[in-house]
């Protein structure tokens, strides 16, 4: 009799522990999901998609080609760090400063998709550098391959 009571108590204890463990695991997973950075590489984390419909061809090489931007954009390896070769943040480069131009594209107009769909969240593109305590642009490798004509050229 005593053995049966003890066994039932053990089973209840382990069930309670299992429920507690499950709840803890779920809450940790939820916290992790909330803290995770959806756009760790900045521009290229968001600008994906190469389907032929104009509004879905969201990858930067396709968008730049559509604007008539030179081939330099396609050859750039790290985005947007490599863009600063021409678009220097000091304003001394061959082309205009990148920052104000990118801000206007992403913040101007009430129907701007960056504002409407992504909440105009600065941390999609920027992060705080804990060494210098300056806000910097996130950067990542380009998400397209170089092409000559229709031939893809490996890096």
């Amino acid at each position: 009799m005593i053995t049966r009571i003890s066994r039932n108590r053990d089973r209840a204890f382990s069930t309670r522990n299992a429920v507690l463990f499950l709840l803890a695991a779920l809450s940790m997973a939820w916290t992790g999901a909330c803290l995770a950075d959806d756009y760790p590489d900045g521009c290229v984390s968001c600008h994906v998609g190469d389907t032929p419909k104009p509004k879905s061809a969201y990858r930067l090489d396709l968008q730049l080609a559509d604007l008539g931007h030179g081939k330099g954009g396609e050859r750039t390896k790290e985005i947007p760090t490599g863009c600063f070769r021409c678009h220097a943040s000091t304003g001394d480069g061959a082309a205009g400063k990148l920052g104000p131009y990118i801000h206007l594209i992403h913040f101007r107009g009430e129907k701007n998709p960056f504002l409407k769909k992504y909440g105009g969240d600065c941390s999609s593109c920027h992060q705080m550098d804990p060494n210098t305590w300056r806000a910097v642009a996130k950067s990542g490798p380009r998400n397209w391959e170089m092409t000559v004509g229709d031939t893809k050229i490996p890096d």
Partner: protein
Amino acid sequence: MKDRFRVLWAAALSGLFFCAGIAVADEFPEGCVSCHVQKIGDVDFRLNTLLAQIGHRKVDRLKVIPRDCGRCHASDDGEDSFTVMIHQIHFDVPNINLFVQRYGGACTHCHEVNTESGEAGLKNGPKNW
């Protein structure tokens, strides 16, 4: 019965519009002084009070915050700049940092983009003390 239904319908619509207004409005239009107010719980969170606690000289003469802080704190003075100090206060030790944990570390509480020039700048507001 119909009247009650109409009243409920009107209340629901008003609630929706109210929520939409809240979602769109800038909760911190004046930057520092929009957040650092007299009462957050039982704490006087105004900047003059907080600065007095850390032994900062009196800031009674300032009129617009943080614009007038720039009289002494140059905005771009290397490691000791105002920018570096304010960023560190608001982002250091993120696990227990009030700005990160409670306000999501959102840049737009303090900064805004000028949609004419494209430059990101600071929000400003009159002192609240």
